[in-house]
Structure formats: C-alpha cells, structure tokens
C-alpha cells in the first residue's frame, strides 16, 4: 500500500472519542503481530490495556508513535487522522508515550533531559541553562514532584527517573493522550500512589490516559474501563467497576487455547540433580529456591522483569550473586563463571539468541562445537578438523538442522534452525542440565513443535531441563512442575496437575500490597 492510497481513503474519525484505533494490521516475517486491532479512549478517562507478554501491546505503541509503520488501519486523535512518523511528531500533536524502558540520557541533568531537543535558546544558538532550570522547577512543582532539577539523572533512583520521564511527557503543553507502558514495574507502593495521584490530576475533560499494566489490583484502582487483547487480536472492553480480576485474566489467557497436552509422568520420585536455595542478587533476586530432578522439565513462568532470566544467569555464574547455595548432585558448588558451569555440565541457552547465543558471522559448525573445542576437538591446542566436521554433520542430522552445509554462516539460517544449532552446542558438550530461556521465541510453529519434541526426548533420556517461557500454553504443555516468579521472588511452585493459565497468572500478577518488600523482610526477622 502506498502513502497516496492511504491518505486518499482516510475517513474522519469520531470526534466524540479522544483516541481511536481501528482495524490495524501489522506483521513481521513469519508472525502476524496485530490483526484487526482496535480500541478507543474517551475524553477524561483512564483506559487499562492488558494482554499477556507478546499479545501485541508494544507493537501497538510503536505503531502509534511511528516507530513502526502499520499495514492497514486508522488512528484518530480527536477525530483527526494521526499520522506521526516519529515519537517527536506524535508528541507535538498531543500523544506522549512513556515506555517501559526509560529513555533518559543518564549523564545529563533532569532539566537537560526534559528539554532535550527543545532547549530554550537565545540567538538561535546559545542555550539558556538558567531559564531551563526555572521552567523545570515550575513543572516539577506543578506536578508535586520533589526532584532536584539540576540532579544528574544517573544519580536518581529508578522511581525518580520514572517521574522525570512523566514530567517530560507532561512538559508538552499539547499533551492530550498519555500512554504508559508498565509504569509501576519499578515503583514501590507509596510511589505507585503518587503516580496515580499524578494521573488523576492530569486527566481533564480534554485528556485521557492509556495505562498498560499487568497488575490487576492497580488497574482496579485507577482505570475506568479495561481493554483486553490477546495474540494480536482485540478481545473485549469492559467497565472496570463491573468486572472481577478473574474475569479479566480469563479473557487475557483465553479458554480456547487451554487444551494443550500435559506431560504425563510425574518425576517426584527421581533424584534431585540441582538444588538452589536462597539465591539473591544485588539488582533483583531475593531468596530464590527451587530444585530440579533428573529427567524433569521445570518450567519458569512469570511476567517480563520477574527475574526468570536473572535466575538462569545467576545459576551459571554469568552474574554475581550476593547470597545463595547451589547443590549439584549432592555436592555444594560455587559457580562463578559460565565456563565453570559448562565444566560441571550446566548449559545455558540465552533468550537473546542473536545477541548472547550465536556467533552470527561464523559457520554453523563453529556455533555447534565452540563449547567442546578444548575437551573434545583439540589435541595439544591443535584443532581436530575431521572430528569437528563429523560432530557438526551428525548434529545436523540428529536435530534436523536445515542448512545446505555446516560451513554455512549461521546468520543465514532461520530462527528455528539457529536455535537447533545452539541446542546442538550443549548436546555435543553432553550437559546434564540444560537451561532453555525462551527456546521458541521468534520461531515459527513447525519448528516450535520440533523443539518441544526434542525437549521431551532429552528429558526422557535423563537430562534435566529448566524451561523459561513467557508463553503459558508452552509452559503448561512441557513442564512437570512450574515455578512462578514475580518481583525477583518465587511466588509459588505448581505441579502440572494444579497448574492452569489462571493459577499461573494469579501468582505472576500478585503483588505484596500494603507494605513494601523491604518492610516484609524486616518484619520477618
């Protein structure tokens, strides 16, 4: 579709709606991210927007601000077509987004960040820092934020940075619609209350807020209506006062797909191969404990930022831990680097396949044998090219890696085949414990099925598997037991029999209300 056609057919929107999204489609190679997506925001309301990880919320936000280009569909702001092609353009017409990841420049001050790109200048060139600070103080006072305008952003707490981000969005006089993506992920309860106060003050009969969150209790407090999306589709919009949290969760996960097969044999009689207790890290994890049995698939469920990947990285020594014991086959061990983890037979497959998994510019064979070069494929430091070739070829056959040759650069393989190459890496290494972090992310359905079968086969053979996944159907289908995490803690462990999407989501969205986590700890001691 060309731009000319698009502008020629844009109809007027409903002026009674503040923001109107209709019939939006967007696909990425192999995946349909959004299909017929729609929602609307009324004047003077807070609209909750919920959906599981991967439901399409972020894609929708990126379309609204022009970071992505939509294939079909219309956006209207106060009845006028919205055609921003950059976030700045969107802000100028009145649409501001506060992303989950903060977009502040850490080495600049609060004032410099807020006015970045719009600095007050004299003579078209010289900045006026005094004027900038004065305006910032006015703004912060108006918003009731107690933050120093001259403070360097990197010295602020995450919560304060979040506040600066909000102040920045509200510094645009024209802002009519404020979209917040998981704004409270890093905030404690007092800060959440302060944020909600800000939101209530911002909302006037001319403005509105789209509040994206997984935290049901918060939505219940702040939102007027709630829109549920799932798998790139619009599901429903309800008045918040009329629905229960259970209703919303049921709509989010969808009953239709809740029919997957479950693993059969319970593994509770098998020996424990890995026992982790009291694992904590500086940044996030608090007192994480779990055990993994031989031949078991242990699922790790939770929302983004819950700490699942951090657990994996801490276990293999990729990140330092501040407390915690790891007992491997009955022996207490210290693992301070992935090299030590690999030597002890623990392999970690990162969620970030391209960034942290593959050597993209190298051949498939290199990516398969890299972990075992010193132990199996070299003699006094010299490579055994024949053995490397042989092992790569047999891995290719065993895992059905589709590539014309093992000498092909791995970057030319499809996502599923790349993933198989990394799995092959740890099979060649003959690891007993495999940690799969989002093993099927970005992989098409056919290859997913193959990877599930492969995981099942490995578990049958006695390998122990930790599978971190954001796709609940996948977790349910594969896992003998499921560890549910939130806020860096284990919120519960469910057996395959107990677990369903609702029970997992309830644990994953649970928040310790009333008191902050720090206080809880003190109260216990």
């Amino acid at each position, binding site marked *: 579709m060309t731009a000319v056609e698009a502008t020629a057919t844009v109809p007027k929107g409903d002026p009674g709606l503040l923001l109107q999204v209709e019939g939006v489609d967007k696909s990425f190679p192999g995946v*349909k991210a959004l299909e017929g997506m729609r929602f609307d925001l009324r004047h003077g309301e807070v609209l909750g927007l919920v959906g599981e990880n991967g439901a399409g919320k972020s894609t929708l936000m990126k379309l609204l601000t022009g970071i992505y280009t939509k294939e079909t569909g219309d956006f209207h702001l106060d009845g006028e077509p919205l055609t921003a092609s950059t976030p700045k353009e969107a802000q100028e017409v009145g649409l501001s987004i506060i992303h989950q990841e903060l977009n502040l420049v850490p080495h600049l001050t609060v004032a410099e960040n807020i006015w970045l790109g719009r600095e007050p200048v004299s003579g078209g060139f010289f900045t006026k820092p005094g004027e900038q600070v004065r305006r910032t103080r006015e703004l912060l006072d108006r918003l009731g934020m107690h933050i120093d305008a001259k403070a360097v952003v990197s010295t602020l707490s995450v919560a304060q940075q979040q506040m600066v981000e909000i102040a920045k969005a509200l510094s645009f006089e024209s802002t009519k619609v404020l979209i917040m993506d998981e704004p409270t992920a890093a905030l404690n309860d007092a800060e959440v209350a302060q944020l909600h106060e800000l939101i209530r003050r911002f909302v006037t009969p001319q403005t509105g807020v789209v509040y994206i969150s997984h935290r049901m209790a918060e939505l219940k407090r702040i939102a007027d209506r709630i829109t549920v999306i799932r798998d790139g589709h619009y599901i429903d919009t309800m008045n918040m006062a009329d629905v229960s949290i259970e209703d919303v969760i049921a709509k989010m996960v969808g009953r239709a797909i809740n029919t997957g097969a479950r693993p059969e044999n319970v593994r509770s009689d098998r020996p424990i191969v890995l026992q982790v207790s009291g694992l904590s890290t500086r940044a996030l994890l608090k007192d994480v404990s779990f055990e993994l049995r031989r031949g078991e698939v242990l699922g790790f469920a939770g929302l983004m930022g819950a700490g699942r990947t951090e657990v994996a990285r801490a276990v293999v020594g990729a990140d330092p831990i501040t407390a915690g014991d790891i007992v491997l086959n009955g022996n207490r061990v210290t693992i301070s680097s992935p090299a030590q983890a690999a030597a002890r037979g623990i392999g970690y497959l990162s969620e970030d396949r391209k960034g*942290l998994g593959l050597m993209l510019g190298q051949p498939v064979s290199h990516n398969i044998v890299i972990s075992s070069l010193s132990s199996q494929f070299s003699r006094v430091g010299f490579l055994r090219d024949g053995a490397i070739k042989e092992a790569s070829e047999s891995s290719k056959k065993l895992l059905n890696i589709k590539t014309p040759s093992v000498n092909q650069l791995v970057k030319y393989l499809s996502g599923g085949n790349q993933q198989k190459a990394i799995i092959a890496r740890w099979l060649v290494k003959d690891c007993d414990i495999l940690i799969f972090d989002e093993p099927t992310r970005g992989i098409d359905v*056919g290859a997913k099925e193959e990877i599930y079968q492969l995981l099942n086969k490995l578990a049958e053979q006695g390998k122990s598997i930790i599978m971190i996944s954001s796709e609940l159907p996948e977790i349910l289908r594969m896992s003998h037991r499921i560890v549910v995490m939130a806020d860096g803690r284990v919120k519960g462990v469910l057996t395959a029999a107990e677990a369903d999407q609702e029970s997992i989501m309830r644990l994953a969205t649970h928040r310790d209300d009333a008191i902050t986590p720090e206080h809880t700890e003190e109260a216990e001691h």
Partner: protein
Amino acid sequence: MSTQTTSPEVAPVKKAGAWRARLDQLMALIGLLVIFIVFSIADPQVFPTYSTITRILFSTVVVGVLALGATLVIITGGIDLSVGTGMTLCAVMGATFIVNWHLPIWLGILMTIVFGGLIGLVNGANVAILGLPPFIATLAMMMVAQGLALVVSHAAPIYFDTTAHASFMGLSTGSIIPGSNFPNAVLVLLVAAVIAHVLLNKTLLGRYDISIGSNEEATKLSGINTRKWTMIIYAVAGLFTGLGGIMISARLGSAQPATGSGYELQAIAAVVIGGTSLSGGKGTIVGTIIGALIISVINNGLQILSMPQEWQNVILGLVILVVVFIDQLRTRRAATN
C-alpha cells in the same frame, strides 16, 4: 496460535560462506597486482626487476611481522597501538641482552621475543581483567614503552659489533639461499606468517580469537574463559612485537631508542587493507601479508618515481580510505541481502 501464519521452514541457500572470505583476499591480491602493474608501466626500466622486488619484500618485513600480531588482536575486536614503540623497547632490550650483557645471540633473541610477549600479556591483562578499552590500554603501553626504551638505553643507540654479532645481522641482510642475495629477513617473515596462519586456523587460540571477536558475550556464555584467552591472544601478539624488535635491529645493526612510533599505524593499515574487520570476528593472515605488501609497493614505487615522502603518506592515507570504504560497502550489501 491458530491464527499464526505458518511459514515453511526454508533455509535460504546463499553461497556466502567460506568463499566470500576467499573473495576478499582475492580482491586485495588483485589490488596488489594492479598497483604493481601501474608502477611497472610508469617506470618499466626499474620497477619490475628482481632487485626492486627484493627491495620491496625486504622493506615489508618489519611492518609485516608487527601486522601479524596486530591481526590476532584486531580479530578479537580490539586494537594494539603499542606494537611500534613496543618493538623499539624490545629492540633496546635485545641489544642490552646481547651487546651489554654478552649473552649468546640465540638466547638474546629468545629473551627479546619473550619480553615482547610480556608486553602483550600486560596489555591483555589491562583489557581482560581491568576491563580497559583496548585503545586506551595499548595507548598507555605505547607511551610507557616509548619512555622505557629511552630509559634503558640512556637515550643513545646501542650498536651491534659487525664481527662478533655478524650472525645476528645476518638474520636480516644475510642470505642462506646459496648463490643468491635473497635476504633472510623475508624468509623470517614467511616463517612467522606461516606460524600465525596455523595459529589462527588450526588451533584453539585462533578459534577462540575469532569467536570472541564475533560475539564475546556469547562465547563467554558458551563456557569459554574469555578473559584468559584474551590475555593469551594479546601475549601471543606481543611475541610478534618482540620478533619485530629483533628484525629491525638486525637490519639497522643497532637498537635506535627514539624510533618506532608510526609503525603501529602502518601495521594496523596493513591489517585493515588485508580485509580484517576492525569490529572483529573476521580476518586472515594471507590478507594481512598482502596488505603489508601493498603498503610496501606504494612506498617503494613512489620513491622510485621520486615522489616526496610527504606525498607518499597522503597517497597511502587515501588508499586506506578507499579500501576500507569498499569493504564497508560490501559488508553493508551483505547485511541488507
């Protein structure tokens, strides 16, 4: 998931593997030949003769040896600015061992090469353990080595004895090929290049080198001790710096403590012209040697054409720009395919 479109898993057949690397070398080789032919046409009397070619090869040796080590470092995604003055410090140390301490020549040579390895090891430790950016770590070493060379030599050249140390100087200017005047230095470069080639292609060191340069974090998560190997790679690169120190003092018959800076840039230029990517993960020894030869041919050719030294540098600079730009164009095209 029912709505998700199932795209058939088709592995795209792109013949872009090993032979692209070979093509890169071929391009450099063609470039070398073209430049050579241009000079031959410009001065057919002098240029395409045995003595000129020998001279070009001979003048490639020092930069070539340094570039071998630099290749190993650059493939990790790092850079080594200390090879020039590091070489000078090694030359001074070598002369100290042999001339001042009267050590046997073979032992002096060995100790000098090991000393070069120590310089590299310090660089590697600064990069891998202290986490300094390679540019800064080796910039500091460049200055330290420059200063130490002057300190150790008391800022005066150390001369080898033309009779007692004849065999030392023979390493460069002598000829072991009977009945010819083909300089040994070129053979030393050849042997060093073969060793570097084997290291890069046939050993764990080379494989980890490429892997670290390709994706250091992924290599680390694959269970490789990337810190240890980064240090080893810098140390091995330092051995070539040590050899460079031997070769330059053998050629000059003395250790000149005030020289050496500028060689690191020529070495890096040779590596880059040879198709090694400054972002790491990709590079060849054959390419580096061709790159060093290109620099030599240009320098010698322009000298023969009586081009002033200043203009030689200008032209060399332009050649680097063009070569790297073409390489980037190719990479970009490959990325968008």
